[in-house]
Structures are given as structure tokens and as C-alpha cells.
């Protein structure tokens, strides 16, 4: 006789033990160290920090190791850790204009103060698998840049455009408190700061897809990359008892300022508008996609018709988080037999009724 399955507890324990073994893999192969992941899988670490909303490369690297390289799982580990951290205040806004630039490019001006700095980029590589990497070996040391006279001076492209009024002014800093979507439920419509928070944490693939859709006509914004810059900025904090800012450390950021067309309205002259993207580490794809979607989400504010998914903040904000998405999609593998039983009963009943009906029709036809 069949008896309902017992032993869930032992099964769970054994599954976890098996997971640990599989995670480690062949013991004959040396184990990955967190330092190796941090140093050699740096872009992956950056992505986990960005979507995990926590700047901690060691923790992100450890999460990746524990997650067997699964990005969403690693983000999950980082977020679950982050959620319990105490919040003792907010830093002074970081000044990306004062960034120690490692890479800085503009697609709108051929040359500009501070110059175009390519930095470490895949952009112009040929994507040919480099089989020499399979064998470990030394690499050629990187070239040293000629020190530029204006290297210290690297103003933001958008600031230069703003001087002529060609681009809308950056929203004035009113010192208003910034919402925190991890501490308050989002109330629609959400303001731009909250939207940017959601996009910064949002899944890179999802935000990328939305950004792409705006380029293909679903909420077109006519974008130009005003500037992308990657580098370290100082993080400062004002302890209440001191009353002045003290440096906490430096973080590496990628900032993207999109410059988008705007025909102007009755109230505003024709000028360029802004889309903004910011991510931890070097995450250009994410920062660019975020900037495109940010601009698309400003449709209502700029008096443009809201017709496409990327312009619809309820659609974007409710669905861009990879943890929420993966949780709800993957929960389908949890048992649903109670609900399924209810549906089975219904389908059987509907089928019986259907058969009865067709029999009646047949009998009627036969009688005729």
C-alpha cells in the first residue's frame, strides 16, 4: 500500500550535502580562492555587487563561489546579508566629476577636456578565443599612458553642454530625503530617485532588453552616449558628532550620461534631455541600459505619450528585480498538488459535461 512520502528532512539534508560536494567539484582540481575570483572574475564580481546593492568585492566573490557561479544566486546571498546590516546614515553624494578616471569616452565629441581614455575595454578586441590562455603564462605588461596636462581636469560632458543651455539642467539638489525602496514599499508613481534605485538593482539582462526595445521603436528616445566614465571616487560621511565629512574609502563606479533628443514643449525650449546610469565597478552595459530606461521612464514628465513597456514605470519597477522574478518563476517547482487537484476535478467535470452534450447531439441527429 502506498503511504504518503515521509522523510523530507533527511532528503533535504542529503541534497545539501550533495550540493556542497558538487559545488567543490573534482577534488583533484585545485580549489578556487575568493581572491582569485575577485581578481580574475572582476566583472562578474562587479555585477553581483551592483545587483546585490552592496559594495564589497570580497563578499561578492565569496557569494559567487558559494553559488557555483550563478549570478542571481550570488546576488541573493549578498542581498540576504545586506538586509540585516544596520544603516547608520547616508554618505555625502559622491562626486563623479572628481573621479580618478580609468576609462572615459564620449560619443558626442571627438576630443574634449580630459581626453578620450579607452582604458581596459573589450570594445575593439576581435572575439577570437585565445587558446594561449588555456596554458598559464605571463602576459605583456600594460603600456604606461603619457601623462596629460589636463589629466586632473576631466569635467562631465553634460556639464559642458549645460553651460550653453543645450541640455536640461541637472535637477537641483533640494536636500530632500531620498527614498529607500528596500525599507519602504514602492508607492506609484515613484520619483526618479526611486526609479534609479530600482534600475541600479535590476537584472542586467532585463534592463538591457528594455533598453534595446527603446532603440527599436518601443519608446524611442534618440540617444547619444554623452559620456561613459569608469574609475574610483571617494566616499565621505559626516558623523553627527564631528559635523564635517570624513573619507570612508573609495569605490569604483561606472557612470553613463545619455544625451537624448527633446523637441521642446510650450513651456520648455528645444534642448537635449538626460538619461542616467550608475553601477558599481566596471559595468558599462548595465550603466548604459539603465540610462536608456531612465530616460524612457521620464516620458510622462516630459509630456511624451506613454505607449511602450520601457516607459511604463509599474511594468519596469515591478519586474526588473532578478530576485523577485526568479523567486516567483522558480516557486512553480514547489508542490502545487492541492491546486492542481482542484483543477483536475474541474477539467474532469467539464469533460464529462462535454461528452454528455456531444452524445445528446448525436442522439438527436440519429433521431432526425
Amino acid at each position, binding site marked *: 500500500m502506498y503511504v504518503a512520502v515521509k522523510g523530507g528532512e533527511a532528503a533535504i539534508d542529503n541534497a545539501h550535502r550533495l550540493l556542497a560536494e558538487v559545488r567543490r567539484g573534482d577534488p583533484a582540481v585545485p580549489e578556487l580562492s575568493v581572491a582569485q575570483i575577485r581578481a580574475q572574475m572582476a566583472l562578474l564580481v562587479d555585477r553581483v555587487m551592483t545587483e546585490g546593492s552592496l559594495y564589497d568585492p570580497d563578499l561578492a566573490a565569496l557569494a559567487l563561489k558559494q553559488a557555483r557561479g550563478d549570478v542571481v544566486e550570488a546576488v541573493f546571498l549578498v542581498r540576504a546579508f545586506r538586509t540585516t546590516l544596520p544603516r547608520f546614515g547616508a554618505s555625502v553624494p559622491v562626486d563623479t566629476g572628481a573621479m580618478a578616471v580609468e576609462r572615459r569616452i564620449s560619443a558626442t565629441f571627438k576630443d574634449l577636456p580630459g581626453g578620450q581614455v579607452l582604458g581596459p575595454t573589450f570594445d575593439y578586441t576581435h572575439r577570437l578565443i585565445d587558446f594561449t590562455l588555456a596554458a598559464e603564462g605571463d602576459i605583456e605588461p600594460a603600456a604606461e599612458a603619457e601623462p596629460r596636462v589636463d589629466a586632473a581636469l576631466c569635467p562631465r560632458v553634460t556639464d559642458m553642454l549645460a553651460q550653453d543651455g543645450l541640455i536640461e539642467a541637472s535637477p537641483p539638489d*533640494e536636500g*530632500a530625503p531620498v527614498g529607500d525602496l528596500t525599507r519602504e514599499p514602492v508607492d506609484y508613481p515613484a*520619483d526618479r530617485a526611486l526609479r534609479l534605485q530600482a534600475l541600479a538593482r535590476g537584472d542586467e539582462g532585463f534592463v538591457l532588453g528594455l533598453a534595446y526595445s527603446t532603440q527599436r521603436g518601443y519608446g524611442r528616445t534618440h540617444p547619444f552616449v554623452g559620456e561613459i566614465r569608469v574609475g574610483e571616487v571617494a566616499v565621505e560621511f559626516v558623523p553627527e558628532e564631528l559635523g564635517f565629512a570624513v573619507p570612508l574609502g573609495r569605490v569604483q563606479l561606472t557612470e553613463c550620461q545619455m544625451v537624448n533628443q527633446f523637441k521642446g514643449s510650450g513651456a520648455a525650449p528645444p534642448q537635449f534631455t538626460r538619461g542616467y546610469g550608475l553601477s558599481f565597478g566596471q559595468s558599462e552595459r548595465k550603466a548604459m541600459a539603465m540610462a536608456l530606461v531612465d530616460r524612457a521612464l521620464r516620458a510622462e*514628465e516630459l509630456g511624451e505619450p506613454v505607449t511602450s513597456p520601457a516607459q511604463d514605470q509599474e511594468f519596469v519597477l515591478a519586474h526588473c528585480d532578478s530576485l523577485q522574478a526568479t523567486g516567483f518563476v522558480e516557486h512553480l517547482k514547489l508542490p502545487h*498538488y492541492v491546486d492542481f487537484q482542484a483543477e483536475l476535478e474541474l477539467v474532469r467535470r467539464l469533460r464529462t459535461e462535454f461528452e454528455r452534450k456531444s452524445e445528446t447531439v448525436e442522439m438527436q441527429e440519429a433521431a432526425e
Partner: protein
Amino acid sequence: MSATHTFPSPRTRGEDRGDLVVDAVSPQGEGEGNCPGETPPSPPPHLRLPPRFADDEVVETLSPQAGRGDAERTAAPQSGYNFAYLDEGTKRMIRRAILKGIAVPGYQVPFASREMPMPYGWGTGGVQVTAAILGRSDVLKVIDQGADDTTNAVSIRRFFAKTSGVATTTRTTEATVIQTRHRIPETPLTEGQTLVYQVPIPEPLRYLEPRETETRQLHALAEYGAMHVKLYEDISRHGHIATTYAYPVEVAGRYVMDPSPTPKFDNPKMDDCPALQLFGAGRERRIYAVPPYTRVRSLDFEDHPFRVQHFDHPCALCGAEGVYLDEMLLDDAGRRMFVCSDTDHCEGRRADGHLGTGDAI
């Protein structure tokens, strides 16, 4: 998106801002979020990476403030975790949402759902509600699909056993708090018990109207016509209402509520129930409640009254009738057996000497 829209977070920006902590009352007027004027944030509630700097502190357990009346104040069994995992500030925020939910039965209260150490969709809402109400003297039961031994029920029960040390049970009658997914126990609940539901989509109107801004307005106006039309369309198409689970109910004559994806078989148990019923939706960030002895009416029509599923066979193991059954497939020839979905109810009956036929169908 007006520039004047402010948010109550104790975060400020601007070089010249004053205090770092802003005592602002939420302009949203509802929802539970960052509580202004709250005590300073407590140290991390659970074990950290080893300290990286000499002055780093790795803090151990925090206050066992949760509890009811006679709660004992013994140390949590798993040192390094706050009692029932969540920090006390978060619990307070959740309790406020629960109290509001009880005050307005069936109304969905937004709350600042936390990222929990289990995935969204696995019951993070229910877990947060349970964590917020659990006291040391509580006895916890966790069921999934009516069963105590399904993997997720085991996982959640262990989570609380580990982080709170409360007694756990599989007996419905012994439990003071029952967290459930998709079922209401067959054994009638009693006063003093709390049933915590895990809710995936708290909005009963969601599949009729995807926009939150719209559905909130519909609730505010008690405009539930669309739902009745949907049920009516079922009748015109099939001759009867074809919603089998997550069957919408009206609570205390006001709000239409999603009872979570319990089969409609369980809906009548919600009506006039002596136990407190709490609903937590973590991903959707909503909490709602049905206080004890509240009218819960399944939506229907005068000429098409609400009806529950009926099974043609009793439970094959314990012979129970009038209970919800699971269908087990026995072989590839399609032989099946129907057994109680509520494992505790089934085991209790068998212990009392009730025996089913054990026959396959």
C-alpha cells in the same frame, strides 16, 4: 513625479543638508516602512565574516523582546541570531502592518518586506509575519499543501526551530501559530490560534487589472463589478463558476480579498473562524488579515450559489469523508489512490482506529 514629493527615509542628499536623520512622517499616509523616531539601528543580528579591522565588532544575540505575556526569556538556541531571525525594528514595523490589517479586515497593507534568506515565492511573506508574531511560548506548525512533511514546510519549520527555538509540532490542536501554504487544516481552529498564510499574489483583481494604481482605486471605491462579470462569464461559458482555487471572498462586507491559492474547498473554514488569520505576501509587499469571528463570504450569485469540491471516494488511508484529498498516481497503468491532503488529520484518524480501504481506483 513632482519635485515636492518627499520620502520618509532618514537619508538626505546635498552637500549642505542638516541632520542626517529626518523625522518625517510618511506622506504616503499608509504602509509601514522606516519608522521615524525609532531607536538607533541595532547591531547586525547574526554572525558576520570575521572582523577585518581591529575595531570591528562581531555582535552576538540581540534582545528577546518578542513574546506574549508570559514569554520566557531564555537565550535563543542558535547564538548569533536574533530571536526568530528578524531584528526587533523590522518586527515592530511588521506588527504595525498586521495591526492595521486587523483593524481593516481584508485590506492590503503595504509593508517594507525584507529580503529573507529564502527565495521570494517560497513563503517570505508568511515567514516575516510568523517571525514578527512568534513568542517563546508559542508552538509552531508549518504545512505546505496540507502536509507537514513536504520539503518547504520542513525547511520553514526548521528555520524557526533554529532561529527561535520555539517548540514545533505537526498537531493542529497543539499549535498556537500555524503557517500554511495552500490549505487550511481540516481540524477546526480554535480561539488563540493564528493561521499565517503564504500569499503569492495578494491582489484579487490583479488578473483583471494589472496596474496597482488602478486596483487600489477599485478597492477604495468598492468597485468589484469586474470580478462579478468574470464569475458570470464562467457561468455563461461552463454553466458554473470555474474558479477552483484562490476563489475571491468578501471580508466583513467590505473588501474583496484573495484567500491565497487554497482550494475553494477551504473557503467556508475562513468564515466566522475563531482563529486569527494573517496573510503575508513578501514579494508583493502586502499584509492583510481576517480577525477572529469575521464574516468571510465567497462571491457568488443567488441562482448560482457557492459550492465546494466534492470527492466521490473517502480517504483510502483513514476513510475520512468530506475532507480534501490528494490524488496519488500508483503506476503507469493509471491506477490512483485518493488520500487526505491534511497529513495530521489523516494520521490522527488512523491513530484513533479509523481505517480506509487502502484500495486503488
